[in-house]
């Protein structure tokens, strides 16, 4: 077990600043997710932690020890790649045994360990196959088994689920989390998929343009976004953000409901909502429209659960409300979160 810490990590590629001063500290055994759009520097950060890239500035600590100058193999880490990166010429057994041999584990102990790792992921029957004879899901399990077999102190995962189909991804996500809870190894997981990030992470690090925008539990990230970028990036559909006076007002589509359907709303704030389009999604209805009047027809979305049965038709204006405690306020210029204002 170990913690990972970055202190003011920067990475330049020529003149391009890919990672701009990142300070992170994982807790022991934590599942930390790096979330951000492509090009935000999350993979570069992970590759620096793994040792494939050298930080241009700053310090990197694993288990309290500065590892800037250590090669990947000396960092006691394991990594699962997006492509799985299985050795194509080796059988599954040899793939899983490779890190053990490389670390000079006693020959007699290897078969037992390989079988233990294989059984953890239910791939014991595939040991004599070559990677090309496996399905995507099976390859992913082999990659996990290979990473896990030598019991690393830190587990790094670079979008390991993105090559699986949607159904498999959901079950793999579930298994991955259960497995991480069981072995309790500090895990850093990179993804651009906010559903994955929210579902898996103990804490989520939201990144943009090489900087950290917010670190927090999925609940905090979702309900208390630190700025408009986080508010927009997390959640689907994203948070409604409307310019109002000198600030930006934000509220989630699921909190924007027809007047009277808000049970237990402490203080409903009224809006009139002109619906332009209704999208029926089974469990939910998505209402696209604008806020007339003081909000100058800015676009917003409402998400009605199927339990709200009010009849809504396009091209009509309705009275909607948002519970006051669900209104978020952001500075009009810095776009950072500010304290509540009168609406």
């Amino acid at each position, binding site marked *: 077990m170990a913690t990972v810490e970055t202190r003011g990590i920067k990475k330049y590629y020529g003149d391009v600043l890919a990672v701009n001063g990142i300070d992170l500290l994982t807790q022991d055994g934590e599942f930390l997710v790096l979330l951000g759009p492509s090009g935000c520097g999350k993979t570069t950060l992970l590759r620096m932690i793994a040792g494939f890239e050298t930080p241009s500035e700053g310090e990197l600590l694993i288990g309290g020890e500065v590892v800037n100058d250590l090669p990947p193999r000396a960092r006691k*880490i394991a990594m699962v790649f997006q492509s799985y990166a299985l*050795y194509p010429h080796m059988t599954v057994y040899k793939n899983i045994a490779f*890190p053990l041999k490389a*670390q000079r584990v006693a020959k007699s102990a290897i078969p037992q360990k390989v079988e233990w790792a294989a059984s953890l992921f239910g791939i014991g029957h595939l040991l004599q196959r070559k990677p090309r004879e496996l399905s995507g899901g099976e390859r992913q399990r082999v990659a996990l088994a290979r990473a896990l077999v030598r019991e690393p102190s830190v587990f790094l995962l670079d979008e390991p689920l993105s090559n699986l189909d949607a159904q498999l991804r959901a079950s793999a996500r579930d298994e991955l989390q259960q497995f991480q809870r069981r072995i309790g190894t500090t895990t850093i997981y990179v993804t651009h998929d906010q559903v994955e990030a929210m579902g898996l992470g103990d804490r989520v690090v939201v990144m943009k343009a090489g900087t950290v925008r917010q670190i927090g539990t999925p609940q905090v990230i979702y309900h208390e976004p630190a700025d408009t970028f986080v508010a927009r990036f997390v959640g689907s559909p994203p948070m409604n953000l409307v310019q109002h006076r000198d600030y930006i007002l934000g509220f989630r589509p699921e909190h924007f409901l027809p007047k009277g359907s808000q049970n237990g709303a402490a203080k409903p704030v009224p809006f009139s909502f002109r619906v332009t389009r209704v999208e029926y999604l089974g469990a939910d209805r998505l209402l696209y429209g604008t806020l007339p009047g003081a909000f100058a027809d800015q676009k917003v979305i409402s998400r009605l659960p199927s339990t709200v049965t009010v009849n809504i038709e396009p091209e009509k204006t309705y009275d909607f409300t948002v519970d006051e405690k669900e209104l978020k306020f952001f500075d009009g210029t810095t776009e950072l979160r500010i304290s509540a204002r009168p609406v």
Partner: protein
Amino acid sequence: MQRPNPTSPILPAAANLSRSPRPASSIFDSERWLGSLLIGPAVLYIVLLVGVPFFMALYYSVSDTTTGGQTLRFVGLRNFANVIGTPKFQTALKNTFVFALLSQTVILLLSNALALVLQNDFRGKRLIRFLILLPWVAPISIGTIAWLWIFDSTYSVLNWTLRMIGAIHGQGFMWLGVPHLAMGSIIAVHAWRQLPLATVILLAGLSSIPKDIHDAASVDGAGFWRHYFQVTLPLILPISLVVLLFGLVFTFTDMIIIYNLTRGGPYDTTQVLASLAFYTGIAGGDLAEGAAISLFLFPLLLAVALAFLRLARRTEVT
């Protein structure tokens, strides 16, 4: 000339077309004829410059023809029987294998090392790549003439260098005049000649390995040697075999370096079958025996070539 009217209906235009029809089946429309036409020159080239001489050689090898004579009688396998028994032939056969196997070993080792180095990014990489490719694009005769000077008994730049660094005193080595040195010298030149192609092919093989695989190996704890021998080498093995087979065929059949540097000497210690066939058949005038010598390795080369083709097809699939 009338401007086409954009609003005119389609029918008259179509009628217009049918009134001045293009030739119904132009040769360029027929896949069969055009195909034959395009591949024709290549087939002709191979038939005239490879096929005809090959079958002539086949027949010469079982005849009693000479460059000066008029006779062309069938004599069976007598030429082969005559040739195989001579010490000259047996020396050349042995030399051929020594030359081919040693030079290919040197080439495989060096090209692997070079490709590994060139795969990395460093300053001046393009220049180095260009310099390494140079022996392949420079005419081989010019190259070997330069080598002739490098190996010259009096003006050898090698001897001069060795003398300057104090490794030898006095006369220096007769690079092309002493049996083992001469063989070593032609192997060195041949390796220099083939190294670029081998390196480029291996570089292509190396760059086809995904970067993730290398990253995985380094994070899995593999050091340089384990990484190379257990991950990189097995993955470029098929393409290395292509390099080897190609090099073998090329070496078994080529004599230009030997012809330019040693003429097979001293005392036939660098004589290979290809050069012996030339000296016997063309310079010596005994076309029949020369043909027999040059055809001696044909079954072996055919087997190598077939293996090469099979391998090429297999590597294509994976």
